[in-house]
């Protein structure tokens, strides 16, 4: 028996003439936490699907727990202890916790009838494995994202997993939830389970993994011990490019463009005051439920504050809705790009101009085709959105480019304040740097920016002031140059 739980060699796979994998190899040792990194489209997901038996490789060999396969079915993979936790967790939002936990087992056992006694037993056992306590009768849609993920993990462990593959597991989690997840991963490791952790977030890779493999364009670019890797090299391997990032300093103190005075919203935040100046990038961080999202959504006209006032350029204003917020020069990039930010099946053009339609049309609302063309062309060029036909649906773009489309929508509106909620969530590292650079240059040109993020390195690197929220109030205002991730975390949780 070898030390490897998984060994794949020289895997090739093409789709309709396009080579997704050009002969990649991956080795995962028993009981190790291995990180597979790479930008979107590098072939990570394809490899996962091959390892879990969903796709069949065109060429190459797979060895699972000492057994070689030329063809492998999903059932073979599960039988050899491979479990995949997908990005969307594959849970049923409408079913109860216990059903979500147990249905897969029952299906595996090819049962035709349902016994709630058995289901309850299976579910309790599954939760017990991780020592988690959840209401078995609750519908999963009423749970937090982190709890849904726990269910997916517990469910995977039921199958005597030897290798758990986690596909971008931290995308939707807050910092604290990520910590909890890492603790669980360590626990699994302690029980001898190997973890393949698929991610492109470098700090996570450094924190959790022992070894790493990096793909680029369907090929291996590097593999080795994580301890022997530094950030710069990691980014270089992933993107093939070099980036440098220094924290942002506004050139001069701009005027106050937006201010909140004693703003309150029931159940979200209370008596909150702050100022935002032109040219600064204000970071807002805090746990989920700290009121940060509600705060910015109130500024953007989604919620109506119960008391307090908002000032724009020193004048008290009433923001009656999103439209009036936009008229006052406030833009908002929502956290969930797919459900709140984009119109996926609609064209890139429409996605860019949607908020500016009133200004891009003339008499009787007739659209100015030329102006729209120019506008779209300008932003595609300026933000280097990778497309050669903007009339294609926006869903054909990668995550980073999709985010740029949302940004373009707002930049087209001559804003004075741009609020971004999780601007680089689910965006690959190259685009992430592009977006950071863009934010900096926008601020330099006088835009006031608010960034909400859980990605603490991001907050530290690209903001000029940080506002930490806790329990609906401002816990502290910090200077990113003189603070650390740890300090931010402590203030958020109120440990310090």
């Amino acid at each position: 028996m070898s030390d490897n739980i998984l060994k794949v060699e020289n895997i090739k796979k093409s789709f309709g003439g396009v080579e997704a994998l050009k002969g990649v190899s991956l080795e995962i040792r028993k009981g190790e936490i291995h990180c597979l990194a790479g930008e979107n489209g590098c072939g990570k997901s394809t490899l996962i699907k091959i390892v879990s038996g969903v796709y069949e490789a065109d060429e190459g060999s797979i060895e699972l727990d000492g057994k070689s396969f030329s063809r492998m079915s999903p059932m073979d993979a599960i039988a050899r202890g491979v479990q995949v936790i997908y990005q969307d967790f594959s849970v049923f939002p409408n079913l109860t916790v216990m059903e979500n936990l147990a249905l897969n087992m029952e299906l595996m056992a090819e049962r035709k009838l349902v016994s709630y006694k058995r289901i309850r037993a299976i579910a309790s056992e599954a939760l017990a494995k991780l020592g988690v306590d959840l209401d078995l009768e609750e519908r999963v849609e009423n749970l937090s994202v982190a709890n849904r993920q726990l269910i997916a993990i517990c469910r995977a462990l039921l199958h005597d997993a030897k290798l758990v593959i986690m596909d971008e597991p931290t995308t939707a989690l807050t910092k604290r939830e990520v910590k909890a997840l890492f603790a669980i991963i360590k626990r699994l490791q302690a029980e001898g389970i190997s973890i393949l952790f698929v991610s492109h977030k470098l700090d996570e890779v450094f924190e959790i993994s022992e070894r790493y493999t990096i793909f680029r364009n369907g090929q291996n670019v590097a593999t080795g011990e994580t301890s022997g890797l530094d950030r710069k090299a990691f980014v270089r391997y992933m993107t093939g490019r070099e980036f440098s990032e220094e924290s942002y300093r506004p050139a001069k103190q701009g005027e106050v463009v937006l201010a909140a005075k004693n703003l309150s919203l029931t159940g979200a935040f209370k008596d909150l005051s702050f100022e935002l100046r032109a040219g600064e990038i204000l970071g807002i961080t805090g746990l989920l439920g700290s009121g940060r999202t509600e705060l910015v959504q109130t500024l953007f006209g989604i919620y109506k504050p119960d008391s307090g006032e908002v000032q724009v350029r020193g004048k008290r204003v009433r923001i009656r809705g999103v439209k009036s917020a936009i008229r006052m020069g406030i833009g908002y990039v929502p956290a969930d790009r797919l459900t709140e930010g984009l119109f996926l099946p609609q064209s890139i053009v429409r996605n860019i101009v949607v908020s500016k339609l009133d200004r891009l049309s003339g008499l009787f609302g007739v659209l100015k085709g030329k102006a729209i063309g120019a506008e779209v062309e300008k932003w595609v060029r300026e933000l280097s959105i990778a497309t050669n036909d903007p009339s294609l649906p926006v869903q054909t773009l990668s995550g980073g480019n999709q985010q740029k489309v949302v940004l373009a929508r707002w930049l087209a509106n001559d804003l004075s304040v741009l609020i971004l909620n999780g601007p680089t969530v689910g965006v690959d590292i190259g685009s992430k740097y592009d977006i950071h650079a863009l934010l900096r240059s926008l601020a330099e040109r006088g835009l006031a920016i608010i960034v909400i993020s859980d990605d603490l390195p991001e907050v530290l690197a690209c903001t000029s002031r940080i506002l930490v929220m806790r329990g609906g109030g401002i816990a502290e205002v910090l200077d990113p140059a003189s603070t650390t991730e740890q300090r931010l975390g402590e203030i958020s949780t109120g440990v310090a």
Partner: protein
Amino acid sequence: MINMRRMAKRSEPYVFGAIVLLCLLIQVQSKQFFTGNNLVDLARSMIVPALFSIGAMMVIVSGGIDVSFPAIASLAMYATDRILLNVNYSGNVMLAYAMAAGFGLAMGAVNALLIGVLRLPTLVVTLGTSSLFTGIMQGALAASESPVPPSILAHGKEKLFTATNTQLGLTSDMPSQILILLGALLLVFLLLRYTMLGRGIYAIGGDEAAARRAGFNVVGVKVFIYCFVGAMAGVTGMVRASMMMNAHPTNLLGMEMTVIAAVVLGGTRVTGGLGTLTGTMLGVALMIILSNSLILIGIPTYWTRVFTGAVIIIGTGVTAWQAGGSGRRLASSGTGL
């Protein structure tokens, strides 16, 4: 153990409350609601819509929507009736039900093929097949009202018991077809709750991709749903014919929207995944009590549609408002769906 917090989020209690209010109103207006024969009359009127609503609920839970069931029921019933009349059939009524179920199943299979296997959108497909089946019935079969074979006639006259109204001495018969409804309820209850197939229906309504990954045979489940619902529609058509002792080809058509409205009113989520038989039956009961009590309440005939429209609007409005309302004040609202 009843979890109050969980109950408050469901719509069954509200529908139930609405039914209680309506019943009290009828009782006050006519003193006739809580009489044995009135309750039997209402139960009788519920049979056909309730049978339809069970199928409609299953389809909506699975994430689809079906408007073809009245057409399937009519054609299945009519074809069966004509064949049996042609051969002068006089045997057991079960054969008639079996034939109607068979025809319904075959038509359901057409839906199943288009929706389950070819993955076409459900509303469009069933609009198309509905038109197709009605056209076949009225064009190719030149359908018109016709009598029913003697055994079905006899079956139509069967009664389980007779309820008497002590005040007025009126009697109403409980038709034996109610057993079919009860049977269908029991069958579908067991199916949905205690079989993997039933849980599969909920699972694909919740997240189809996840269901596929979990190992549910998604195509198989969908094919089953549309075939089963088709067969049930066929039986329902026969139930109606036997209760009316007359095969009327067009009398069921046009019920689809009311049935779907009743199902949605009963708390079934339009986008799939959620829905209970209890809620569905409550929704149907509300609609049926309403439409069968307008005279009892004393609404003049000319005003019935105004009243029905107002009740639908207010009823759904309260439920929708309840479901959508959060404590926080929104600066501007509007969801679009």
